C-alpha cells in the first residue's frame, strides 16, 4: 500500500472511530477527558503503526475496538495515570455543554461504571457506543451468550446504582 492510500485510509478510520474511541476511553477513565485524549491518541498511534499488517481477518471496527480496550486496560497501569484517575473521582465536565442535572447524572454514571470489574466496564462502554453483541464477543473473546448475560446484569446494577446514587 503506498503512503497516500495508507494516509487516506487512516484519515477515514480517524473520522469514523476517533470520537467513539475517545468516549469509550473517557468512560473507562471516570470521565477524565485529558487522560482519555492521551489514551485515544495511543490507540490511533497503534492503528497507524499496524495498519500495514492489518489483514481482513476480522472487520476493521473489531480490530480498532480490540486495540482500544487493550490500550485502556494497560494505560491505567502507568503509575502517574493511575494517581491522576484516583484523585479525579468526580470529573469537571464543561458546564456549557450539559444542563446541570444532566451533568450530575453523567458524573454519577461515570462513577457507577467505575464500580464494575474491568471486563464489565469495557463491555458496557462498548454497548453504550452501539457496538453489536457479536462484535463485543469478538473483542472480548467470550461467547455472544455470555455477553448477553453479562450486559443484562450490568444494566440492572448500573441503573440501580445511578437511581439510588449508590457509589
Amino acid at each position, binding site marked *: 500500500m503506498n503512503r497516500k492510500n495508507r494516509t487516506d485510509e487512516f*484519515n477515514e478510520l480517524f473520522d469514523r472511530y476517533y470520537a467513539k474511541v475517545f468516549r469509550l476511553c473517557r468512560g473507562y477513565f471516570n470521565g477524565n477527558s485529558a487522560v482519555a485524549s492521551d489514551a485515544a*491518541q495511543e490507540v490511533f498511534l497503534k492503528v*497507524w503503526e499496524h495498519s500495514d499488517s492489518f489483514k481482513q481477518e476480522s472487520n476493521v471496527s473489531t480490530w480498532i475496538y480490540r486495540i482500544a480496550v487493550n490500550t485502556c486496560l494497560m494505560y491505567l497501569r502507568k*503509575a502517574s495515570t493511575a494517581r491522576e484517575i484516583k484523585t479525579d473521582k468526580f470529573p469537571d465536565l464543561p458546564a456549557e455543554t450539559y444542563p446541570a442535572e444532566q451533568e450530575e447524572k453523567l458524573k454519577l454514571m461515570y462513577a457507577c461504571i467505575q464500580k464494575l470489574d*474491568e471486563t464489565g466496564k469495557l463491555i458496557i462502554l462498548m454497548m453504550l457506543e452501539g457496538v453489536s453483541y457479536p462484535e463485543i464477543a469478538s473483542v472480548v473473546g467470550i461467547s455472544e451468550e455470555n455477553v448477553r448475560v453479562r450486559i443484562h446484569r450490568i444494566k440492572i446494577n*448500573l441503573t440501580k446504582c445511578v437511581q439510588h446514587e449508590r457509589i
Partner: protein
Amino acid sequence: MKEFEDLQNLWNKQTETDVNRSPEEIIKKAEITIKKVRQKHLWTIAVLCTTSAILITYFLWFSIYRLQVFALGLGMMAGVLLLRSAVEWWSHVRMGKINSNLTLLDYTEKMQSFYTWRKKIHFIFTPIIYVLYFSGFVIALPELEPYVSKGMYWYIIISGTLFCVGFAFYIFREAKKEIKTLEFLKGVK
C-alpha cells in the same frame, strides 16, 4: 432515571469531542515514535557490544599484568551488569511482540504470562545477579588496594556500596509495580 434506556440517552447526548487531535498530528507522532524505538534498539545493541569489547580488553590487559584475581572480580561485576542489561532489553522486545489487537482475554493472558516471567526475573535472576556482583566487588577490592591511594580506595568502597543499595532500591520499586500489575491482570476475567 428509571430505566437503562435513560442512561443510554444520557450517554448519547454527550457532545464533548476531543478537538486537540488530528490524524496528521498522530501520523507525525507515530513516525517519530517508530524512529525513536529503532534508534533505542540500535543504541542498546551498541552499548552491549561496547561493554563486551571493554570486558574482553580488561581481561587481556590484566592477565598480562598478572592481576588475574582483580580481572576476575571486575569481570564478574561487569559481566552480570551486562547480563542484566541484556535481560531488560529482551524484556522490552518481548513486551513489544505482544499484539494489541488480540481479544481482551487473550491479550490479558499474554500480559499475565509476560509479568509472571518478569516476576521470576525479579525473585530468582536478580538476587543471583546481586550476589555475583557483590562477590566480584569483594574479590576485586583487596587486589586494587596497593595500586590506589587510601582516599581513592575508600571512595571506591563507599560509591560502590551506595550504587549497590541505590540500584537495589530502584529494582525493588520497579518489581513492586510490576507485581501489582500482575495482580491486576489476574483479576481480569
